[in-house]
Structure formats: C-alpha cells, structure tokens
C-alpha cells in the first residue's frame, strides 16, 4: 500500500511539472488601459481624475500591474501646448503612443484629449471619456460616435462633466442667505465655450430653482477679465463670482492659465469665488460646492471596469458627473472677512 501511494504521489508531481512547462501555455495577457490627459502632469484637475480612474479599476478588481497595465500620456494643453497647432501636434503623438500601446480601453481626461485623439483614432478603441465639458451632442455633430446618451451604440461612452453650477449657487445661498446676485466669467476657449453652454443649460433646467440672479460674462482677454473683476468688486448687489475663465491671453499674447488667473483674482476681488472644481480652492479661490474630479474619475473608472468585464461601450449610457464636493480655502475666507459655520467646515470635503 505504501509503495503504491508513493508511486501515485510521484506521478502527480511529474504531471504538474510537465504541465507547467508545456510550450504555448502562457499566462493570460494583462488588460491594457491607456489614460490620456489634456492636462499636464500633476494638474489640479487631471491628477484627481486619473487617481479616481485607477482607484475605481482597482476597486473593481483591475489592479495596475496585476490584472491590468496602465499607461498615460499628458498632452499639457492647458499650460504649454495650448494652441490648436500644439494641441494637434500633441494629439498625433498621443495617437502614436496609443497605437503602440494597443490598449484594451482608452480613457480620456478633458475635452482636448477626447476631441483631438479619441475621435481621431483610425481603429476604434473602446473609449471612456471623463471630464467632458463640451456637450456630447456637439462633438457628435463633427464626429458621430453615439446614437443617444442613454445608449451610445458605438465604442465610446463616458462621464460628462456637469458643473453643478446651480447647485453651487444653492449651497452658497444656504451658507450666505443674503446672496442676491452672482456673476460668472467664462473665456472663449473651447472649454470656456463648453462651460458657458453647460451653465446656460443648467440654469435653464433649474428654472425657478436658481437661488439668485445669475449673470455670465464672457471675457475675451486678460485685461477685460481684470476690469470686470474689479468692476464686480465694486458692485454691492453681487455677492459671489464664478471664475470659469481658465485660459486668457493679454494684449501681448501672453497666456494666463487658471493658477495665474486665480492668483490675481483673489488678490483683487472682494467677492467670494465659487471654485469650478474643488481643486481650484486649493489654488486660492473661496470654494464652495465644486466638481469633484476624483469622484468623476472614479465614475469613469467604473464604466471602464464594466467594459473590461465585457460590456460593450455602446450599451453603457453616458453619465453626468454626479458627485460634487464642498471645499473651502480658509485663507481666502478670512481674507474676505467672512465666517463659515463650524459644522459646514467640518462637513467640507476639503479645506485649504
């Protein structure tokens, strides 16, 4: 009996050794995810979204290096390559990288990456957009990638970045009930235009539920922006500004990006500023209810995981970014001589 038992064990071991060494029997290939940023690396908007995507994938069982391989490329279209030419150039680079990487899924962050890369790829790759400010229907006009938001039908789906503008006004109104009027500033960049459109849509959608008068000012230059800010500071009726002009040029052609614009704004404005997303509070704005890029990234990552699990992108409806966060810059609050109740501060997602 002992002899036969040993023989059986030996046979099993031999079988296991031989089977592991069989030619052509490779481990299943890791899924490949490519995250394309419109932003530069460590951008206050791009990084949270990136982290959110990775976190969501991980939560859904796709850990980088284990179940998936993630690669990323930063087109830096907000700070450096912010002209159409530079953007397109970066898009070509990105396309090459993507084609070289052969991702199973492409995640684009912000409109530039989506518009210049995702919509331009020769071979369709399942794509999830995130932080898209422009209306999907608008992009669909130039390049048809969806049938409807609910059932896109193609290989593209994603998360539409809802500004929650009216929500932000409502929150501020609840903190400062005396708020009568607010003024928003948008630029003429594609993103600016998309933001502008979205703000109008939200106001229209909310209708009477908008808690105060809302005015949107489109500024074309840095100087105009400065003037409007200063002018607004003198207007007592306006209790709140919404600085959504994120890319401005002065008369000399110098480009001013969000950090620069916000730095000047807080130095010269006497009105609290709603941050378009909570990362802007970190840059010095007053804060308030703002888009939660991390949550939005997670929302997109969840969709990506579903696709990785086998769902077709065309079957996954396009979502709006659900989550918005509460963030305050206490320095700016104190600078403005305002006081935010302690419980609200405690409930805030981020305080800077």
């Amino acid at each position, binding site marked *: 009996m002992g002899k036969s038992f040993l023989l059986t064990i030996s046979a099993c071991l031999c079988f296991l050794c031989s089977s592991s060494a069989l030619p052509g029997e490779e481990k299943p290939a890791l899924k490949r995810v490519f995250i394309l940023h419109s932003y530069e690396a460590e951008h206050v908007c791009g990084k949270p979204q990136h982290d959110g995507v990775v976190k969501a994938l991980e939560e859904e069982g796709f850990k980088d290096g284990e179940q998936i391989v993630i690669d990323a490329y930063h087109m830096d279209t907000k700070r450096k390559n912010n002209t159409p030419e530079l953007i397109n150039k970066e898009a070509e680079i990105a396309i090459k990288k993507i084609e070289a990487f052969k991702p199973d899924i492409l995640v684009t962050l912000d409109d530039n990456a989506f518009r210049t890369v995702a919509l331009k790829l020769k071979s369709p790759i399942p794509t999830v957009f995130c932080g898209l400010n422009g209306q999907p229907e608008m992009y669909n006009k130039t390049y048809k990638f969806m049938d409807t938001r609910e059932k896109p039908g193609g290989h593209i789906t994603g998360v539409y970045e809802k500004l929650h503008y009216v929500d932000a006004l409502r*929150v501020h109104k*609840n903190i400062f009930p005396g708020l009568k009027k607010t003024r928003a500033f948008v630029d003429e960049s594609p993103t600016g235009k998309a933001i502008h459109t979205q703000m109008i849509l939200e106001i229209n959608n909310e209708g009477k539920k908008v808690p105060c008068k809302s005015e949107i000012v489109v500024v074309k230059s840095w100087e105009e922006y400065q003037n409007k800010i200063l002018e607004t500071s003198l207007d007592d009726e306006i209790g709140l500004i919404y600085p959504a002009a994120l890319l401005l040029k002065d008369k000399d052609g110098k480009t001013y990006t969000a950090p620069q614009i916000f730095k000047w704004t807080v130095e010269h404005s006497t009105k609290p500023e709603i941050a378009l997303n909570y990362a802007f509070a970190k840059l010095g704005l007053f804060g308030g209810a703002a888009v939660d890029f991390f949550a939005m990234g997670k929302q997109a990552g969840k969709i990506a995981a579903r696709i990785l699990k086998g769902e077709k992108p065309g079957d996954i409806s396009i979502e709006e970014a659900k*989550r918005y*966060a*509460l963030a305050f810059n206490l320095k700016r609050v104190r600078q403005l001589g305002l006081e935010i109740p302690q419980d*609200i501060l*405690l*409930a805030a997602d981020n305080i800077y």
Partner: protein
Amino acid sequence: MTVVSTGKFSRFLGFTLVGFMVVALVIAVSVLYDTVNVAMTREFQNQLLADQSEVSVILSERINEVESRLKEMSFNNLIRVNLMLEMEDPLKDFLANHYPYEEGARYFVRDDSGKVISGKPIPSIEKIVEVMDKGLEDDNGERQLYRIDNHDYYIFTAPLRRQADNLGTAVAIYNLAEDVKFWNRFYTNRQADLIMTDGKLMVNLFDHQRFPVPEPVSEWIKAGANGSYEDKFSQHFIMQLKSYPNLFYSVSTAPFYAKKADLVERLVVMSAVILLLSIFVSLYIARKVSQPLDDMANQAAIIASKPDNSSLNISGIKHEEFRKLAEAFNNVLFSLRETESRFRIMLNDIPSIAVQGLSQEGTINYWNKASENLCGYSAEEALGKNMFELVAMPDHRERAKIFVWNICESGIIPEPIEADFLTKDGTAIPVLINHMLVTVPNRPPQVYVFAVDLRGRKQLEAELLHSEKMQAIGQLAGGIAHDFNNQLGSIMGFADLIRDQLKVKELELYEYADMVVQASARASELTRQLLAFARKGKYRSEPVNIHRMIGEVISLLDHTIDKRIKLRQHLDANPPMVIGDPIQLQNALLNLGINARDAMEGGGSLTFETTNVTISPKFETDSEGKLSPGEYIKIKVIDTGMGMSEEVKRRAFEPFFTTKESGKGTGMGLAAVYGTVRNHHGIINITSTPGKGTTMEIYLPISDAREMEEKKAVGVIPMAQNNETILVVDDDDAVRRMACEILKSLKYKVIPCENGIRGVEEFAANKDIISCVLLDLVMPEMSGREAFYKIQEIDPEVRVIIASGYSLDAENRQLLERGAVAFLSKPFQITDMAFTMAKAIKK
C-alpha cells in the same frame, strides 16, 4: 354451614404480593409520571419563556442597532450640512456609501419638505412615506410593525436639526424578514417561528406564510395573551414576544409531546420490567414462605392420619419464624393429645352418662363404660353394631332411625328426649337422651348420644310424690291435732290445777281430777303422736342419752316381749347424746321395737345397734333426701321377722297404714316414728327382705358437748324474785288464762292481752314495769311475729318468750336469732314455765 372456599397459600401470597406490587407500581409510576410531566411541562414553559425572552432580546438588539445607527445618522454632521446646503447628490452618495442597506435595515433622509433622499432606491418608499405622513403610532415602549406591500417594517425616525432649525428627518426602516443576522441567531439551536398578527391574520415573518387566526387564539390574544397558549389546531405553543405586541413566538408542540410520549414509553418499559421482576420475586418469596408451611402441612397430614406420638420435625426448618410455628404446633399437638386423652378418659369413664357414637345409619363407633353399665353390652359387643337394633325398643326403632338421620341431614339438634333402652338382659331402662352432631370436613357426620339413667329420678319422683302425700296428710292431721291439743291443754291444765288444789283437801275429788288428768294425758299422747307425724309435735328440747333410752326401751320390751325373741344391743356410739324430746324419741324406739316384736311371731332376734357416723358433704341417703353434713348417731333396729314387701315398705310410714289385724294397731306407730325422726333433723330408712327380716336405720344429729353438760336442777321450782310483771299475749282465752294463772302461782304479776295489737299497746304503756313478754305466735289480726317486731322497736332490750303449740321450727328459730330469749311449748306446764321465765328474766 358456610362453606369457605380454600386455595393455596403460596398462590394467595404470590397474587397478593404481585397485586401489591402492581398497585404500588401504578401509584409510583403515576406519581412519577405526574411529577416528571409537571417538571417537563414547567421546563418546557420555562424554555419557551426563555426562548421568547432571548428572541425578544435578539430582536431588541437588532432594533437597537438600527436605532443606534439612525441616531448616529441624525447626528451626522455631513448629512445635516448636505441637507442644509441642499447638496442632494453628495448626500445620496454619502448615504449610499455610509448607510447602505444592511440586514433588513434601510436608511434615508427626508428634508423639511418631505422629499426622500436615499443612497439607493427604497422599495415601496411612497407607501412608507404615506404611512409616515399619517403619523407613526406612539409605541409606548412597544414596537409597532407596519405591513406594507406584503412586507413588515419597523419604522424609526430621528430629527435632523441644525441648532434650532429643523432640517428634516432621518429614517430607518427595518424589515425583520430580511435580517439574515437576526434569523441566523433566531434559528441557532431553535426550531420555532416568529408570527406577526393583526388579530385576523397570522403571518410567518420568515417565510411569509399567511393563515387566519383561529378563534381560540384570537380570544386568548384579546384576553391579554398572558402566558403561553397551546393551539391544538396548529399544534403549536404560542407566546407573545415581550415588548412586541404584534409578535408571537411559536413552537411546535410535536417535540414536547414526543418527549412526553418517550417518557410514557420509558415508564411503560420500566414498569413492565419492574412488574416482571416483581412477579418473579413474589413467586420466589411465596414459594420460599409456603414451602416450609407445605412441608409442615404434609407432616401434619401424616400425623393426623397416624395418630401416634409423632410430631413435626423441626430440625430441617431453617427460618426462626417457621421453627417457632412448628414448635408451637407441636406444643398445641401435645396439649391437644393430652386434652383429648383426658377427655377421652373422662368421656369413657364418666359414670352416669352413657355415651354412644353413631354414624348416620346408626352404626355404633363409640361406646363408653357407662353405656356398658347401662345397657349390659361391652364395647367389643357394641362397636360396629346398629344402635337401633341393639338398644332401641322394637316399636321405636324406625322412629329412632329417622330421628338420627334427620339430625345428620338438617344439623338441627332436637330437645332432649326421654326414651327406653333395651338392655342386654331385656330390661327397659328409662333414659334421658341428648344428641350432639359432630361434623368434620370431608368426613361423614357423627351423632353422639348422651343417655342418662332415669331410674333413680323416677324413683325419687315416686318418693317425692309419696312424701308430698305424707305431708298433706300430716298437715291435715296436724291441724286437727293442734286445735284439739289446745283444747286438751286447757282441760289438762285446769284439771291439773284442780288436782293440785284438791291434793290435800278433797282426796276423792282429787282422784277424779287425777283421772281427768290421766285421760287428758292419754288423749294428749294421741295428739302428740299425730303432731309427731305431722312434725309439729316436738315440745321439748333437751339432751337425751340414746344409749340410756335404748336401755329403758329394752327394759320395757323385756317385760312384754315373747321370750323366743332374743333382745340384743350393740351400742358403740360415743357420744350417744342428742338434743330432743326424750318422750318422743323413747316412743319412737319403743314403736320400732313393738313393730319388730310383732313381725317375729315365731321368734327371732331384735337387735339395737348404735354407731357414730360422720356425714360428709357428698353423702346422700338413698331414700330421704339430703342430711346436713355433721356428726350423727346411727341407730339400727334389726329384726329377723317376716320382712316387708316393696309395697309395704313404700307405704310403711303412711299414717293409719297397718298390716296388722283390725284393732291391733292404729297405723300411727311408724308414722309417728317417721315424724319424730324428721322433727329431730334425722332420717329413717327401711331395709327389708320379705321372710328375712327388717332393718330400720335412724340417723340423728349428735348434740353439742356443752349442752350435754347442761342439766336442769329438777325438784326446786324457781319463783319470781321481785314480783316481776309479765305481759301475756295470747288470743286463746283459755290458754291465756291458764298462762296467767301459772305465772301468778309463781309469784309473777301479769298483764293479759287478747291479741297482738293490744299487746303492743300495753307494752308501750307499761314498758318500764314489764320484765318479760310471753307472746303467742299464731294470732289473728296481728301475728306474734309482727307484734314481736313492734315491741322490739319500742324497747330493743325487751325479753320475749315465744310460745307456740308447734315445735321449734325454722320460723321460730329466726325469732330467737332476732332477739327472743326463749321458746316455750304449749300446753304450758308449770315446771317448764317456771324455769323458762326465771332464765329469761336473768338474762
């Protein structure tokens, strides 16, 4: 006769023990079952209560967890701020992430407008909100369940406030059925159900099965749902969950009854085993107990069948009790044998009762000695013979046979009967027969005949008849003689006085008077004989020497008797003294001598013999009743004359009966003798054989020695010393007058009274001067006895002399014992009166 059925003791003992064990077992098992059943029921009820409490605790814990979570939610700053800032989406997100659905509990928020904000969609939220808007019931500490869309919810709320501002409400709905955590704990080591009822329907909260509430259960719930309720229909115990009025803990009764059934089964098996063991042990004990008894019974049967001197063998008996029983049996046996032997001897030797044992057919199987004596057949001759043929009178045999047969059949013992036994020599003997029936189990009945010879009694009866006749004659003669004697006494007394008065004056008249006295004396003698026969004629009572008297009689006879008759005397008595009347006694002996002389016309011998005889208490004479025990002198007068026939013997003492020729005898001789002897407390017997002679035997009591010494001084008549006064009470004028005259002649004063009443009156009037009372006993109106008692009442020390024409009989003796000082016979004689009176006054 009651027949008692018998059975084996071992069987009886065995059945008794088994019966006792069965009864004891039934009682023990009943008590055990009752106790265990009560304990089981109590344990089950306690378990039910404990389970119910535990479930209540588990549910309370779960609800408390939900409520705690809700409380925490109501204090959550983020929720409050989001609500305040109307940050609905972040709030939803927050709720979804932090207050997700868990274990049946769902959490959501309602803002101040009532809008529901929840992390996830909540089923039936509209209806839940509707219920909430209607207002939740005040639970008063008891949880209320709400049934919404076939689900049962506990709904809990907590206000969401920011300082004084009401922001909304935090809500938790808890669906118990979905709480896996609860059910896991509920079903751990428990097989039960949790039932929710609204009074009409019952719902199993786990599987949602619905069923209507049975009527009894509904009534029990309405009555307060106290304790537990056993629903026979569903076969469940139901108990309300503490603090949860709508919830009931339900347990199937099946395990409980299965446990009870198991208990019953165990008890039955145990009882059966114990019963079997009991039967075996009982039979063993019964056998052990009865075996020595059986052995003893067998030995006793052998002993009974062979009546030798054997006894129970006790050496093989191991147990002390049975040994004692055997010893006691042997002792009883020996005692019985001894008793049986004694009675057998007694029965066999009893002299006067002839005992015969008979079978029902009359075959003789017992014949005692008295039977031998009575019937003349020895036991050897009689045993085995038929009783009726042997001794019954021929014409009575059939009747006797039926008589005995009836006794055996009916068991009724008849009254004693008189019959005649035919003796061996053909004589018919009258007997009194008693019967006794002896029955012994398993043996034929036995009749015992107890026959008493009636010949003696018959003779006694004849003699009694004769005696009664004699007594009647005597009374007749005595009555006449008494009156006659009284008259004669007067005649003689006055004649005597006349004679005394004429003694010295008128000699011629004196002789006449003396002739009167002499004639009176002869007449008196005749009456004396009559009175003697009537046993009323004893007038004197003095010591008499029988030997001297016999000498005087022989002397008298010697002068008158035929010389061919030899007179002999053998006087051996010592002392020869008796107390009596010497004249009567002398006359009696003289009469016997004369009769003997007359019986020996051709000569012969006449012998007087005396001997002393001591009569023991058992002694009885053959013919004349019983003599009192004591010393007697026996006087025999024996002649060798013609003797007497039985008829003559039987009538010899009758007055005026004589075999002599007419004119030669009065027929009063032996009658007077008979009366005299009886009057002296003696008896007289006749033994006579015709042609050979006759012997007359007289027994007289010997007198006391002191009395024998006492002799009266004859010659000097005592006179009254002080002219004492004597009260004389007598209804007869002549007698009274004579008594008074005699007393006066003796120098006494007299107070005469004609009756008892006057006597008492006179005594009462003159008691101080009356020294003595002479009182006649036989008086009309007030008798002497009555007067005596009354006088004695007046003066207890009074001296009374009783006077009577009769002898000193028992009645007179009684008066002497009561205080009378003396007895004086009538007719009075001066000498007797003088001595008696003088003696009485001296006392």
